[in-house]
């Protein structure tokens, strides 16, 4: 199975190398989509052996992820793994995440950071709970950790996926895609490594509200 990792990255020069090296143990190709970083993210990713695509304008995590999926399709990927570039996901979980797709049980696999004992700050737990509720309201499907960037797309999902939302709301759009195309889903408990760095990179409360409004409005006006 040709498995490709897609890592959208924005100003992650200090973290991207480790993430790429860890991912290479489980995938044949690592694609890093540099979303117009101001630092040396693209250079570090290239040095680490990743295929690097560069956005000439900052377009958002959703846009970068879709660019990576397009590139993976061009490489005839059978499955795509998406990872955050800040190192909060443990690439060693990729094997467990791939299993439902390899066994033909699922078209998309969602990581569940709340499925095992992880040290997750309360504010993050609340934000994720709100994200799950909004996602359910917009799509009618409950996913335990809908806002996690760690996912695996099987062959069918790789073919059919279309992400239109550019920002962080793309996670909800992916859940919507799973409903629209009737993909079989699986949810796998994974580790998460929160640090002051990853906390600082996360969405602010105001950004979260804006994202929630966009999700609800777009699902309504679509």
């Amino acid at each position, binding site marked *: 199975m040709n498995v490709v990792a897609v890592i959208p990255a924005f100003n992650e020069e200090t973290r991207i190398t480790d993430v790429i090296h860890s991912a290479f143990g489980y995938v044949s190709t690592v694609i890093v989509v540099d979303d117009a970083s101001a630092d040396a993210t693209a250079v570090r990713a290239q040095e680490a052996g990743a295929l690097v695509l560069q956005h000439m304008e900052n377009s958002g995590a959703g*846009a970068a992820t879709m660019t990576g999926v397009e590139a993976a399709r061009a490489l005839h990927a059978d499955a795509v793994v998406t990872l955050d570039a800040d190192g909060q996901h443990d690439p060693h979980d990729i094997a467990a995440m791939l299993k439902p797709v390899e066994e033909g049980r699922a078209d998309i696999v969602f990581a569940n950071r709340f499925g095992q004992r992880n040290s997750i700050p309360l504010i993050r737990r609340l934000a994720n709970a709100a994200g799950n509720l909004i996602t359910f309201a917009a799509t009618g499907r409950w996913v335990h950790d809908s806002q996690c960037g760690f996912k695996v797309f099987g062959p069918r999902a790789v073919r059919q996926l279309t992400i239109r939302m550019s920002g962080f709301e793309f996670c909800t759009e992916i859940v*919507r895609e799973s409903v629209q195309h009737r993909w079989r889903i699986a949810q796998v408990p994974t580790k998460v490594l929160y640090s002051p760095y990853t906390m600082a990179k996360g969405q602010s409360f105001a950004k979260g509200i804006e994202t929630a409004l966009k999700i609800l409005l777009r699902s309504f006006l679509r």
Partner: protein
Amino acid sequence: MYTLSGMPVTPYQILAPLVALLAISYAWNLVFRQKKTIWEALLWSVFWGFIAAIALFPDLMSYLTTVTGIKNRENAVFITFFGMLFFVVFYLVMRVEDLEQRQTRIVRKVALRDSDLNGENDPHS
């Protein structure tokens, strides 16, 4: 003059349910064309059903009177159109987003072209 629940029927009370019916039909049409999910069509139907219900039976609003101050049909019409105005503004916001998406697709095409990969599988290309 025709009456509904003992009250004379206004042109608004005929027009609003017709518009609602059209909007609901359009939503379910999109479901059959696989452009909208059943859930989204249900949300859409509830919204427009509510608009139609308020138009046909303004008395339904009476239980909200203490909260909203809507005490008569004129106020109900005002509030309904106020809601529709918001709806139009948000629709325009979405149109702006569509323009942003076009820009994103251009950025994507350039990124793929520069890496010698093409975006031939992009349904929008």
